[in-house]
């Protein structure tokens, strides 16, 4: 994980988890146009998750598809609870996530990166958002699926939390699990997020840590 890797963006981060390579950039708070989209009491958060055509085995046509539109939305909802949007009425905070290389778990890697980019942009936050994915492969609950595991897995569950008080900001699941398996997965996922949290804090310290 590396913070502040782009010059023009207000905040940025690069995160590599497994074979995922993800860049996130944040602009803002900045003036929002057209004006009718402004909110008088808070900043509007926008988010775009985008996969590079070369990020997957078979070339992906560029531009948003249904999957990335949904991911953009859940990512935005995963990050928004952490941001003090009420500090910046009438502005927008724009988050861009670019998946350069995709393994499984791009959305969670994207959230982890975007949360670092928000911190790097100096945007006041309640906490960092840390994300990871849990899955079920051959009847066992495991952390961090790889692509192969994901394709043959029985369930995939991305999760994001604000680790300070363990509040969940993103939770999705796709596949089949019994209630017991689900409980186990939730526990394991939250633990995974806390590990990611440590890495995020380390990355922030690395950029700003020299000196004091």
């Amino acid at each position, binding site marked *: 994980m590396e913070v502040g890797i782009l010059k023009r963006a207000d905040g940025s981060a690069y995160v590599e988890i497994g074979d995922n390579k993800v860049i996130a950039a944040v602009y803002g708070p900045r003036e929002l146009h057209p004006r009718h989209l402004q909110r008088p009491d808070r900043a509007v958060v926008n988010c775009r998750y985008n996969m590079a055509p070369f990020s997957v085995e078979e070339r992906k046509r560029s531009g948003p598809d249904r999957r990335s539109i949904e991911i953009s939305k859940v990512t935005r909802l995963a990050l928004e609870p952490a941001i003090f949007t009420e500090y910046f009425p*009438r502005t927008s905070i724009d988050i861009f996530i670019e998946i350069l290389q995709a393994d499984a778990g791009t959305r969670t890697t994207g959230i982890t990166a975007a949360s670092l980019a928000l911190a790097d942009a*100096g945007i*006041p936050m309640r906490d960092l958002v840390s994300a990871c994915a849990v899955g079920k492969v051959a009847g066992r609950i495991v952390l961090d699926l790889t692509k192969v595991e994901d394709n043959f897995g029985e369930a995939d569950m991305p999760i994001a939390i604000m680790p*300070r008080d363990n509040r969940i900001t993103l939770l999705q699941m796709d596949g089949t699990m019994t209630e017991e398996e689900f409980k186990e997965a939730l526990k394991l996922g939250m633990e995974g997020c806390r590990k990611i949290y440590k890495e995020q804090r380390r990355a922030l310290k690395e950029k700003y840590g020299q000196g004091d």
Partner: protein
Amino acid sequence: MAVGYSPGPGTFSDRGSVYSSVVGLAKREGEFARVVALEGKYIPQSGDLVIGVVKDSGFTSWLIDINSPYLGVLDVKDALDKFDPVLEDTSDYFRVGDTLLLKVKSVDSVRRVSLTIKEDGLGEINGGKLIKISPTKIPRLIGKKGSMIKMLKHVTGCDIIIAQNGVVWINGEERVMEILSNAIEKIEKEAHTSGLTDRIKEMLSKKLGGEYGDSRQETVEESSDRDTSSNK
């Protein structure tokens, strides 16, 4: 971050504890815990000195880009003593692209910003050079009790105006301005490190060389003594 303190700037409280809301340096000032942010946009506050660029002119006002998510409005009544909207045009006075030194007059609850130039020293700026730095680094550029800016002015002989919104105007000899810009960039980059005033002074003296060295040697040393003592 802290328990038993009140939340100051850059922090918030949650169930009795104070947490940092931005990446920065934690400080305790009396009963307050605060965090000096290392990054962030300029958010205008009433009384701030800002340097802005005219973005648009209306019938009785100008829109000013003040390097912030919020545009500033300079009303003619805060700029001119007399103005006749029928006979005159606001662009007769300031045009799009003009640079102004302004003061933030007020900021309302939805962060509408009104500006004024009706105070001594405010108004259009010409010549010299503008440098943008992160607004969070402005206090460092000024230094404790103005130590850094005093030293910069002294050593380079340039005019320097530091505006709260992260814009710095400098004016002087072309070659010296170049060296001064580099110094300001260095201050921005190393803002959170200690012993900075001394290092910058050393760098400037070296680069400016003989031409500025001899005649100013004495005063420079004097001021640097003050700087180090106020830093401790």
